[in-house]
């Protein structure tokens, strides 16, 4: 029974995991269905936090902190700024309209079913990795070894993003003046 579940309910850590997974799932659902865009954005905070927790359960310590630093401290703040800058209704309950929710739900539901079916039926080649080890230095070694080119290329990507974003915002300023 326990083996079939893939989780041991007598293990206290399993309950923590379940709580985190439930939090992630529930807040992701709230992002999708909330009527208020600011609540959507703050559910996204919980989702990011829950995903960081999942990373910690997967022994990816560096990524868990990077998730907090980039997603919560960066992308979420950017999204919140975006919401606050572009709202047009002068009311605190910013509406967040949806179109064709039924079609969307059917497509998303089908996608979920397909993904769930595949992930449940595939015979994954699971191996025992041994006790958890710190990942930061492994990522660093990979960065200067096999993944050196993507590492350097990502700086060019970031340069492009920086110039692009600056260009778009400069466009704004020209209009303002």
């Amino acid at each position: 029974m326990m083996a079939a579940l893939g989780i041991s309910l007598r293990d206290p850590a399993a309950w923590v995991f379940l709580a985190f997974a439930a939090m992630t799932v529930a807040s992701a659902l709230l992002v999708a269905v909330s009527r208020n865009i600011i609540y959507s954005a703050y559910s996204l905070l919980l989702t990011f936090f829950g995903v960081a927790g999942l990373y910690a359960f997967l022994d990816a310590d560096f990524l868990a902190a990077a998730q907090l630093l980039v997603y919560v401290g960066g992308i979420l703040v950017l999204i919140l700024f975006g919401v606050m800058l572009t709202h047009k209704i002068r009311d605190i309950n910013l509406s967040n309209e949806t179109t064709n929710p039924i079609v969307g739900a059917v497509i998303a539901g089908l996608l979920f079913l397909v993904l769930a079916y595949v992930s449940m039926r595939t015979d994954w080649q699971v191996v025992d990795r041994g006790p958890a080890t710190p990942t930061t230095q492994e990522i660093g070694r990979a960065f200067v070894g096999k993944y050196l080119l993507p590492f350097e290329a990502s700086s060019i990507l970031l340069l492009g993003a920086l110039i692009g974003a600056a260009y778009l915002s400069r466009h704004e300023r020209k209009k303002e003046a």
Partner: protein
Amino acid sequence: MQLIQFAHGLLPFLAKWPDWVVYLAVVFLFAFAILNTLVAPLTGISTYIERRLAGRAQYRWGPNRVGIRSLLAAMPITRPISKLADVQPFKFIGSKIPGGLLQFAADGLKLFTKEDIIPAQADKMLFRLSPYVVMAGSFAAFAVFPVSFWCSAINLNIGIFYVLGMSSVVVPGILMAGWGSANKWALFGGMRSASQIVSYEIPVAIALMTVVMLAGTMNMNEIVATQRSGYGIEKAGFLGWYLFRYGGLMIVPFVIYFIGGCAEVNRTPFDLPEGESELVSGYHTEYSGFRWSFFFMAEYSNMFAVGAIATTMFLGGPLPPYPVQFTESLPMLIRFGEGFFWFFAKSYFFVLVMIHMRWTLPRYRIDQLMQLCWKVLMPIALVWFVLMCGIKMARMEMAAPAEAPVVAEVHK
């Protein structure tokens, strides 16, 4: 693991308990102790010290006077007793007690019993949730501080990176308060605060990364351990601290870190988000009573955290300025106290510096603030990072020239 072994050594019967229960209990006690020594009372003490300093700086003596005598004199029934303070033995004792002590108690009582107002237009949920996020973000950073020798609540190997990540959780919390209050000042304050915190995070992170590069580890306990020796001396005392290493070159990242740290906790001269003359009091304008005090507590615990990070990364954390072998043979408990003393003294020193700065320097303008960050601190931090990498490279090259056997040095 060390914590569990320590607990087993202290209380042998714990060995029968499951490990996770012992671990949870120990960490909980540790966290509880930090909350009740470093966060909550320290806020009160810092407020008291800040008041007294402010009173002195502004020739405003009130905060230095409020004491038992004024309390007694305030109530008709006890007024006769207050006259006793002019009688000799009491007069002498009274002159020895620092004034203003009761202001701190009165403040706590006032905050606790004050009316809790939630504006009618406010988004009630965000308004209520914000203190939780801000408090959790600022308290979680305390988990990895090495409060004494090899002793932090959690020995995370991503240490300083975790602190950066957790402290960035505060930003959405601040925006939450600003937006949820449905108040112009609060919204502006929240925007300014968030924008300021995220901007200054970059020079701060680069300055801290310089230390990580030199130490070769992100674990805060290990960073402290690398500061025991320096300049070729095994136990070097203060010479081993990163601030004094490399011929004083590390002073620049330290200064960048400290300026950025002051900006990140919104302290003067960077207190634009709370500038009274323009924004009333920033993102917590609409907060009152005990709910407000959590923001206050978070601000003061953040100040302490800035000092603690500076201490750990640049000033040897719990390491004393004299070589450690002087006290190495002392009993464990005394050594713990010694480490904690130095950690606390160094960290609190920075809090005092920040309080002094508040009453010394005028406030920046928003454009000056952003220019300082992006045009001064950021380029210097980057250039200094590269420079320190180069110096480190030169030193490693000298230590092991290219002809030497190559990978023997690869360790861990």
